[in-house]
């Protein structure tokens, strides 16, 4: 299991398109991926777009990300890359 706290740094926060990209990325891995707001204990499934939209994560907010499974390192690396790259804003949706 790998766990990290990541910061949302794109201007619009995790809006619909960003959520779609995050879910698409999460879905490419076999690992189970969970997200949570640091102020709350509940985990949201990283492969659920409705769950991620419900987090309503705005710019500057932090999310705890937990990845668990045989490809967890690669999955976490990809999620970190998405957070760092502002969810590839400005590129075409996958």
């Amino acid at each position, binding site marked *: 299991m790998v766990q990290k706290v990541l910061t949302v740094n794109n201007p619009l926060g995790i809006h619909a398109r960003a959520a779609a990209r995050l879910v698409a990325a999460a*879905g490419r891995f076999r690992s189970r991926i*969970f997200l*949570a707001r640091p102020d709350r204990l*509940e985990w949201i*499934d990283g492969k659920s*777009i*409705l769950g991620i939209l*419900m987090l309503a994560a705005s710019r500057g907010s932090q999310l705890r990300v937990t990845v668990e499974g045989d490809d967890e390192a690669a999955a976490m690396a990809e999620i970190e890359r998405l957070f760092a790259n502002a969810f590839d804003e400005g590129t075409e949706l996958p």
Partner: protein
Amino acid sequence: MEDSATPTQMPALTVGEFLEKNRSAVRLDPGSDPALLARRITKKRLQKLGMALAGFAEYIQDGRIYVFGNTEASYCRSRSAEQLREVIAKLAPRLNTGILVTQGLAPPPVLAEFARQQGLPILRTELDSSTAIYRFTEFLEIELSPRMILHGLLMDVYGLGVLIGGESGIGKSECALELILRGHRLVADDVVDLRNVGGKHLIGESPPPVRNLLELRGIGILNVREMFGISAVSRMKEVIFYIHLERWHSQKAYDRLGFSWQRREVFGVELPSMSIPVAPGRNLSVLVEVACRVFLMRSSGQHPMGDLCRILADISGSSDGTEEVAP
């Protein structure tokens, strides 16, 4: 799914939320400052102020709504303002959530003055004390129960609250859509907000931001209520049956007879459950619907496997395996 399910923090409700959700019965006293609505209710039981007004204040607790009704009003009339002021002052440190004045009474001046000084909201209702206590205790019992978010699907199928679990991508949302088209109702897709009420009942609903929404891969997010109408959705439902969808494993033994229920614990409540394997050619929504019919039949004592055993026992003259199976 147990590990994706974590209880949230200690539940609490602000006085403002309490008012909002009971708009038809309760209003804020005009003398109370709306800024006080941020006070938090953390206890489920409402209690009459009763003996606290006579100076016995041991049982006054933080986080609780206190009821001021006819008894309290007539007691107050029998005391001088000075006597009351002295007694009420002693309640100050722990009486910090709110006072509900029942029967449409106006709060006596001493009480109103105390509330103003303490920054305590006064709520008013036309209900009598016993009705108000019964009604709002029941309301708080649900609102203040432990909650958690679960990844899954909650449907109302033939009036049964069925929680459907299974890994992402197994087809829960597609199953939901087909159940909706067959006349059943969506409660929550993907994100289910569950409350454990009294350790016995699980009440599920959708978190408000994603209420009525369904996500279908390849199509996007649908608003089921707008698309299929009010009868395609249900706001809240008690969960009484759990169905787990799982990938078909040729090595795994599935229930072939339907003899007994599996049991599965979901957020502290044990539910009868079924595991349904998913494979090409198995129509999920029909299977879920039939599972619910089976549940309803078993609940009323009808059991095809029991009947078959009895017939076989009659033929062979033995009494093997004929015990009744309760749901």
